[in-house]
């Protein structure tokens, strides 16, 4: 059976550094930090008192009040970016068969605020259960995929992927696979997350995963810097319209890039710590190159997972050097989490978009907040520190890794025919 080609025909983004794809690229290209003191709750007693929140988001600008009340923020974010992407792809009725359009959506946690609020209400009561009927359908992680399908009448494959911070990349890989196998023509894919809550920050603080640089939030996310002290929690969403190539051509769609490979692996090592030698990361990058049938030398840019944790950054770079050898010195590496923070289950979506925009603009967005070299990293590597770099970008690789030891990679290539 011949596999079909799959291209990206629409994008949507709602991020801590921009509320549309255009604004997001502007933030990436200019090295803007999205970190600031937490506004979603009073973090006065928390070890970490800042986050990368979406700015100026007003639900009423996108939904009527009744509709908004029935959706957790992570679903609202999903709906906003799906709408931008569907419009961007010019998916107008009559140009597709609704039964052949799916939604595969990633989120690591789902409706954390809803879960927290309902449990707090119950705990404060007299034991009488007064759970809201919308509690479960607001909280469950798959509900964003459901909402998107209902809004547009997309009746193809529909579900969510959950693999912590790799969730959205798993969604992209699944979408890619279903389309190349001929099981759908178009899939709205991506991910969303809204975990900046007491439970989210408190939980990650307890894991010692978050930066505690409260005196300088905007420089806290500093992947590969000697003084990095953990990730900065982000929120937001990204949507990508994946489409079978001939289907896209037939309806005259604009094509951003081709998705040419997906790779997956597990560390099988520890629930939260990465494998010290980056074994899972190494395997996943080899898997994605094999799936795409390209040589390591063809990769121009790696948008790394690079969360700014002491251990994770080191093991990922070890893996890159093993997989790419001498070519590791010629490609550009950057962690856009230095700007956006870590969007958990949505990270793979907005970083896939960053990789595609790097191809579109022939410009690699930077790893900002580099102050001090860390001797753990080979000085010959180009981490695109502090300023974006113009260069030829034909092929971009995006890595995301999740708690549980899930590793995922996707490869995008400039369409060249």
């Amino acid at each position, binding site marked *: 059976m011949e596999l079909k080609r799959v291209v990206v025909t629409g994008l949507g983004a709602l991020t801590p550094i921009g509320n549309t794809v255009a604004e997001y690229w502007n933030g990436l290209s200019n090295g803007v930090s999205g970190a600031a003191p937490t506004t979603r709750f009073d973090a006065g007693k928390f070890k970490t008192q800042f986050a990368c929140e979406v700015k100026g988001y007003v639900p009423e600008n996108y939904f009527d009040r*009744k509709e908004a*009340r029935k959706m957790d923020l992570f679903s609202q974010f999903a709906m906003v970016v799906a709408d931008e992407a569907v419009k961007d792809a010019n998916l107008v009725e009559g140009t597709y068969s609704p039964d052949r359009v799916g939604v595969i959506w990633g989120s690591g946690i789902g409706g954390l605020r809803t879960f927290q609020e309902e449990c707090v209400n119950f705990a404060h009561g007299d034991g009488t259960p007064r759970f*809201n*009927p*919308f509690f479960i359908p607001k909280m469950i992680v798959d509900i964003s995929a459901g909402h998107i399908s209902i809004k547009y009448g997309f009746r193809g494959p529909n579900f969510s992927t959950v693999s912590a911070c790799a969730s959205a990349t798993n969604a992209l890989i699944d979408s890619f696979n279903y389309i190349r196998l001929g099981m759908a023509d178009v899939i709205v894919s991506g991910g969303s997350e809204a975990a900046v809550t007491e439970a989210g920050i408190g939980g990650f603080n307890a894991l010692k995963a978050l930066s505690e640089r409260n005196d300088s939030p905007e420089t806290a996310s500093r992947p590969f810097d000697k003084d990095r002290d953990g990730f900065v929690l982000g929120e937001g969403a990204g949507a990508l319209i994946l489409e079978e190539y001939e289907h896209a051509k037939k309806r005259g769609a604009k094509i951003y890039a081709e998705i040419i490979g997906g790779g997956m692996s597990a560390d099988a090592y520890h629930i939260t710590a990465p494998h010290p030698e980056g074994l899972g990361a190494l395997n996943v990058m080899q898997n994605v190159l094999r799936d795409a049938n390209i040589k390591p030398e063809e990769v121009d840019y790696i948008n790394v997972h690079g969360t700014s944790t002491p251990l994770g950054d080191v093991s990922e770079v070890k893996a890159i050097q093993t997989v790419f050898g001498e070519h590791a010195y010629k490609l550009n590496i950057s962690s856009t989490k230095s700007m956006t923070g870590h969007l958990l289950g949505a990270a793979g979506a907005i970083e896939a978009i960053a990789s595609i925009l790097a191809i579109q603009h022939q410009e690699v967005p930077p790893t900002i907040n580099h102050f001090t070299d860390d001797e753990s990293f080979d000085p010959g590597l180009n981490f695109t520190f502090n300023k974006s770099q113009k260069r030829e970008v034909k092929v971009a690789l995006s890595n995301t890794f999740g708690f549980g030891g899930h590793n995922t990679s996707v490869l995008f290539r400039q369409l060249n025919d």
Partner: protein
Amino acid sequence: MSEIAEKVKAIIIDKLGVEESEVTPEASFTNDLGADSLDTVELIMEFEKEFNVSIPDDQAENIATVGQAVSYLEEHAK
């Protein structure tokens, strides 16, 4: 309008996102005010909370309009 009727009306406007003028005594939650089955459950729960009553499921099934809600609550509210 009774105090109870005023409160019922306010809850319906808030939860269903409808205009005040639509909330007539005859208005049906599902047929006229756009409520689905989950919205109706939520309304009943809000009435229970606001008026400190417990509405058994078999009686809740008979509360389908604004007027029916008001009369039930006028009878049972503590």
